[in-house]
């Protein structure tokens, strides 16, 4: 026999100003099954909650309906109150007579009647509610961090320092990412490697961090707290345990003219190489695509001269399986390359370079050892033009967004150039200056005021080469759109920041959403920037959107905090409002026919196959099974199931129909 308690809130005046709450309480009392019906000014307050607890105990209530605001506000509050009074929290429902009634209508009888209807509906539902227990999911307290740039490094360190294990996977032979390629960073002009390498070493030495470099994620299965990852450790072609990192092989390798990825194509490296001197791990890798042995079967010089005989030409990729509880994606970004700026001769003229190439020129460990020399003939450029927004904010080139960091690094580049070439003339063609971070505006002013960088507001229409000079045809809109032609020795394009190659593939492997530019989607643009819509997978750094180092580090720590919070519990508690496939007595076992339409349609890959076997082990039928760790209770499977074998706890067919019928048959069930 149902004994429902109805508690109607005035919500100050939010509800009572429009709805006659006394009338609602009186009407609710007349609904069959309602044993207690009161109204009060603030149900969510301590006295209000106490009222509910007292009523539960005194009147032996079997269910509670709180008619007040939206469940998104106080459902947890009232459910906790019920639990404290000994009533299963899932026997408590909220009837929203504020957002759905008092806030959207004028004061009238009709409004009050509507409030009564809403209450009646929820009473009908709660009569069908079943006591539910929260789901507990075990947590593997190891995190998988994919990407070893500054964001990945920071996240790894933070998680490791909070006492948990980290597996860091980096696809390049060394960690460090783009930050290791930079010469100096804004707004402090800190030497990039000087501030990065200590962190890199910390990662290498941290007892809680296992680093797999020159490795990529092969596959990811499972769910939050219980992921199974397979990592492909690519073959370096040497035995890492024997290699001491002496570097002899890299010095003697006869194939030396391969464009260095680390030097952004401006320098050369051998076929067996360490990307840069401070690489972690400091062990070389053989580039099988360019090594003479793999191409022609000859040479093998490195094998001959290696003092520890560490070379292993026939080494194969290794697949490593790990179990982790959370994944942090920190795969970073790239800058746009290719033939997308023919009017600037990008890719055609050697002296039209991009930002990363400029960094390598400016860097002390770069191809020119930090001397400002242009790629074509090695001359010191006397006039350099910096072109901002080369690809960003440009729908015609396919990118509408702003890449955020270019205004700052362009100012930085111009300053670095001026510091190295005192008599040099730097010009920046810009549209706007976006310098929103701390000390950023001051940094740009310094470029203009102290370092004499000349800023011209306008875009460049064309760059062509004549007589060893680059003719830059721009305009100055502040002078009325006046054409400005500059003869430059070198041009640096601030090309757009884009998602890394392979971003889409990785996102699909781990089942997260991404946008049309292949940047990974956060769960909420403002309030949940480091989580994805897939439970247990977090984001850090530029893989989510172009951003600078301070923000990447901040996000990485944020993601680490989420992981640490996840790992701080012995088990994960989840709301049991999930789908369940029914069970019947033998010989039926379940009305599920095994069509698995639910499995195909589930957006969270939460449905598995379950084999029902007889006592003799023989297969009777294969039915669907919902993984309680993954199911988000969206109800897609319920809508599609043709045999109505799957249902959502807390929102069952019965409950929903009860609500509908209560509305249609209003008043008939009243006493």
């Amino acid at each position, binding site marked *: 026999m149902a004994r429902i308690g109805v508690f109607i809130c005035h919500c100050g005046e939010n509800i009572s100003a429009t709805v006659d709450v006394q009338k609602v309480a009186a009407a609710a009392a007349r609904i069959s099954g309602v044993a207690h019906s009161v109204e009060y000014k603030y149900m969510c307050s301590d006295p209000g909650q106490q009222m509910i607890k007292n009523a539960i105990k005194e009147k032996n209530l079997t269910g509670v309906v709180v008619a007040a605001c939206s469940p998104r506000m106080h459902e947890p509050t009232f459910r906790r109150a019920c639990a404290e009074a000994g009533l299963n929290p899932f026997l408590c429902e909220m009837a929203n007579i504020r957002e759905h009634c008092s806030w959207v209508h004028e004061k009238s009888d009709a409004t009050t009647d509507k409030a009564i209807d809403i209450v009646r509906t929820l009473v009908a539902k709660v009569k069908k509610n079943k006591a539910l227990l929260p789901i507990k999911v075990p947590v593997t307290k190891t995190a998988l961090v994919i990407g070893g740039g500054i964001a990945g490094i920071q996240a790894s360190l933070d998680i490791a320092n909070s006492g948990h294990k980290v597996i860091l996977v980096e696809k390049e032979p060394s960690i460090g990412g783009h930050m290791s390629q930079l010469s100096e960073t804004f707004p402090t002009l800190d030497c990039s490697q000087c501030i990065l390498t200590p962190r890199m070493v910390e990662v290498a030495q941290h007892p809680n961090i296992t680093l797999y470099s020159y490795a990529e994620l092969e596959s990811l299965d499972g769910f939050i707290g219980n992921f199974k990852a397979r990592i492909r450790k690519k073959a370096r072609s040497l035995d890492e345990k024997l290699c001491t990192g002496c570097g002899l092989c890299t010095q003697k390798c006869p194939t030396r003219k391969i464009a260095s990825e680390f030097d952004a194509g401006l320098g050369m490296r051998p076929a067996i190489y360490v990307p840069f001197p401070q690489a972690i791990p400091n062990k070389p890798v053989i580039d099988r695509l360019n090594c003479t042995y793999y191409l022609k079967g000859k040479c093998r010089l490195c094998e001959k001269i290696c003092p520890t005989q560490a070379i292993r030409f026939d080494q194969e990729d290794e697949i490593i399986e790990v179990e982790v509880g959370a994944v942090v994606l920190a795969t970073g970004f790239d800058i746009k390359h290719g033939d997308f700026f023919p*009017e600037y001769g990008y890719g*055609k*003229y050697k002296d039209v370079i991009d930002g990363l190439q400029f960094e390598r020129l400016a860097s002390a460990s770069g191809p020119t050892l930090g001397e400002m020399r242009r790629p074509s003939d090695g001359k010191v450029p006397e006039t350099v033009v910096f072109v901002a927004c080369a690809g960003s904010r440009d729908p015609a080139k396919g990118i509408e967004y702003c890449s955020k960091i270019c205004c700052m690094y362009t100012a930085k580049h111009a300053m670095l150039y001026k510091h190295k070439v005192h008599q040099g003339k730097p010009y920046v063609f810009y549209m706007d200056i976006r310098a929103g971070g701390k000390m950023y505006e001051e940094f740009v002013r310094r470029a203009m005021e102290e370092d004499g960088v000349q800023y011209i507001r306008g875009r460049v229409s064309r760059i*062509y*080469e*004549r*007589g060893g000079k680059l003719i830059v045809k721009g305009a100055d809109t502040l002078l009325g759109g006046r054409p400005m032609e500059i003869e430059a020795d070198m041009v640096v394009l601030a090309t757009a920041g884009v998602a890394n190659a392979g971003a889409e593939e990785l996102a699909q492997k781990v089942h997260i959403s991404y946008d049309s530019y292949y940047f990974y989607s956060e769960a909420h643009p403002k309030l949940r920037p480091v989580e994805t819509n897939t439970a247990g997978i977090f984001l850090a750094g530029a893989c989510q959107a172009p951003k600078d180092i301070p923000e990447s580090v901040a996000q990485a720590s944020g993601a680490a905090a989420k992981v640490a919070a996840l790992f701080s519990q012995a088990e994960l508690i989840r709301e049991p409002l999930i789908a369940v496939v029914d069970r019947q007595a033998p010989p039926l076992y379940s009305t599920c026919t095994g069509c698995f339409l639910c499995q195909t349609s589930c957006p969270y890959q939460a449905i598995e196959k379950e084999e029902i076997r007889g006592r003799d082990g023989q297969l009777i039928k294969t039915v669907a099974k919902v993984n309680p760790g993954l199911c988000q209770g969206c109800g897609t499977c319920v809508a599609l199931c043709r045999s109505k074998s799957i249902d959502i706890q807390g929102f069952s067919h019965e409950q929903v129909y009860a609500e509908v019928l209560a509305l249609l048959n209003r008043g008939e069930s009243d006493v």
Partner: protein
Amino acid sequence: MKTGFYPGCSMKGSAREYSESLLAVSQALGRELPEIPDWNCCGATAAHNLDHDLALALPARILAAAEKNGMDEVLVPCAACYSRLSVTRHELLEDEALRKKISGLIEADYRGSARVLNIIEWLAAIPELESKIRAPFAHRVACYYGCLLVRPAGILNFDRPEDPQSMDLLLKRIGATPLDWAFKTECCGAGFSVSRTDVVAKLSGLILEDAVSRGAEAVVVACPMCHLNLDMRRPNIEKYSGKKYGIPVIYLTQAVGLALGLDEKKLGLRRHKVKVKFGEGLAKPPSASITPASAMPTAGAKSASGDSPAGAGSTAAKSGEV
């Protein structure tokens, strides 16, 4: 596939040698070019500057006449006419109401079925071109496309608007060495030849200066307007810049005609203001240039080295999209 021919007004007058050389070349290659009967002026710059409907009606009448004559495509050697006809076809195919309106104006149902070809496309689609070459055109040339052969790229869908290669590839096929230069698609001054000759002098002067500085022996054009500005206005250019330029400007069809071994007079080479002779007193190619030698971007066609005929002839003119 019936290919019609729209000469355009200047072919009869100031660009007479273009018409002559085209006819000579088409005869030598055995290609018929039936003129669209009773064709009218396309309106060129004047019509679209002064009236939108007139600017569409004049080309529409031409193309409707072509369709009526069973022509599937029309060769339009003048770049300006090519632009007007192409843009008209595009606009009227996009906007059904407008097409009906213009059809009403010209008192003929314009369907938009006839394709519009430019001279480069037409020449490039001749597979046996290489086999007919008697005197390879072994000169360093600057291929000048001008504005309207490649822009607006979205409508013409012909060649890439930056650093196009279709004419260069064609010149290569006839044995020439097309140079990489910076003014391939910069405007010569167009229709201001009479009303603002000073502008033409300046803009055309810049084009010649660049071509000469790269060591070109000739500028090859495919537009009567460009030819007029670069050739007939040479005295104005020289006066404006204070420099003498001896570099000849020849039509693409004249270059092809010479390669086919046709007579100079037949190709109208005597009608030029600037005497057509090659390699004399012209600048040597510059020594160290920072432009890499192989600056050719990927092209859709197989770039024939000049010996064997190109395979898929009809795609030879198309280059990779930007």
